[in-house]
């Protein structure tokens, strides 16, 4: 029964190679952290924050913000299949496709279609996929338009600490099908709504018994944290996950991006 267990593939390398590899990994991590943690845009009265914590030295999660010429804030968050160096390389490819897509002045769904077209052949060749959630927030109307390519929808908690329902939406992962089509959904945010974008590393964090953190726990936690600033929410969630996993090695990259609208308009 079940004799075909994974075999240990670790091979010894020479010490000089170890040092070179360690140095290059450190440099790669620095590059990735700088690209991910670029200056946060200042827009409207919003309080915005984002962080990515790779499971290994570098990771395959991605998030980005860009202010569009029409004054909207474009947000993107994604998860490249896999971890470590291969995923990090594809994360850079994803970032390039996103930045290039901004030239098309497209909606979130059209942006995903443009990105899928530009990345499909490479991802097919490499046998990989990327899940993405793209959203535009209009600070004038508070409309949040979002589209998903196989990525978890954001969680929205209002100032009364209630979760707001979003229209369920699914879409094929980037790299899944050559001509994937995506749809936009729009919700109008209210004063002090908190929008929490995330990758599955949060809800799939495991404790020592293999139990998952899961979505309901995250939602309940966000309800209790709603009145904090976004960077404090970020910190508290990291603390809560650390407490839950209790020293168990992080298996997947963890990324969260938080938008609180009209934060200064009390």
């Amino acid at each position: 029964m079940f004799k075909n267990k994974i075999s240990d593939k670790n091979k010894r390398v020479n010490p000089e190679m170890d040092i070179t590899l360690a140095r290059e990994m450190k440099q790669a991590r620095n590059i990735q952290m700088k690209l991910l943690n670029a200056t946060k845009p200042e827009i409207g009265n919003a309080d915005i924050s984002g962080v990515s914590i790779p499971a290994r030295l570098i990771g395959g999660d991605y998030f980005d913000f860009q202010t569009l010429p029409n004054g909207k804030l474009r947000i993107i968050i994604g998860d490249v299949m896999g971890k470590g160096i291969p995923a990090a390389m594809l994360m850079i490819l994803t970032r390039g496709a996103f930045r290039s897509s901004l030239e098309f002045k497209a909606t979130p769904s059209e942006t995903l279609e443009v990105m899928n077209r530009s990345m499909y052949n490479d991802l097919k060749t490499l046998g990989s996929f990327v899940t993405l959630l793209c959203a535009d927030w209009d600070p004038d109307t508070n409309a949040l338009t979002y589209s998903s390519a196989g990525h978890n929808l954001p969680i929205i908690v209002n100032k009364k600490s209630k979760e707001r329902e979003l229209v369920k939406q699914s879409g094929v992962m980037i790299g899944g099908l050559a001509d994937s089509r995506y749809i936009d959904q729009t919700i109008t945010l209210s004063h002090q709504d908190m929008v929490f974008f995330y990758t599955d590393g949060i809800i799939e964090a495991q404790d020592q018994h293999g139990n998952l953190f899961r979505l309901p726990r995250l939602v309940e936690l966000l309800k209790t944290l709603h009145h904090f600033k976004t960077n404090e929410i970020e910190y508290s969630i990291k603390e809560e996950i650390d407490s839950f996993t209790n020293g168990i090695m992080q298996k997947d990259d963890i990324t969260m991006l938080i938008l609180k609208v009209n934060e200064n308009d009390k």
Partner: protein
Amino acid sequence: MLEFEKIKTQRLLFVKCKGDLDIECEEIVHEELIPAMIHEKNVRVDFSNVHFVDSSGMGLLISLVKTLKDKDINITIQNINDDILEVFDLLQIPQIIGSDVLLLES
């Protein structure tokens, strides 16, 4: 960690998987599981004892199904739990690998 047990019948190869399907299964899928299936005509994979599939595991599963389909091997997967099916739905996995691959309880 993923383990599997093979049961060969006249009609098909039955593969019973046990454990989590994640990034750590890269070698077992490509070096053991696919080679074990590649010369068959019909393969049925049982997921009764697979409780968790992460995004990397989804990629491995897609790779496995596509590799077998490219060789004209019929593959079906049965007894997928609700948590995993929910992720399949989010990622639109049936559209990518073919809805006939997943045997769902009505």
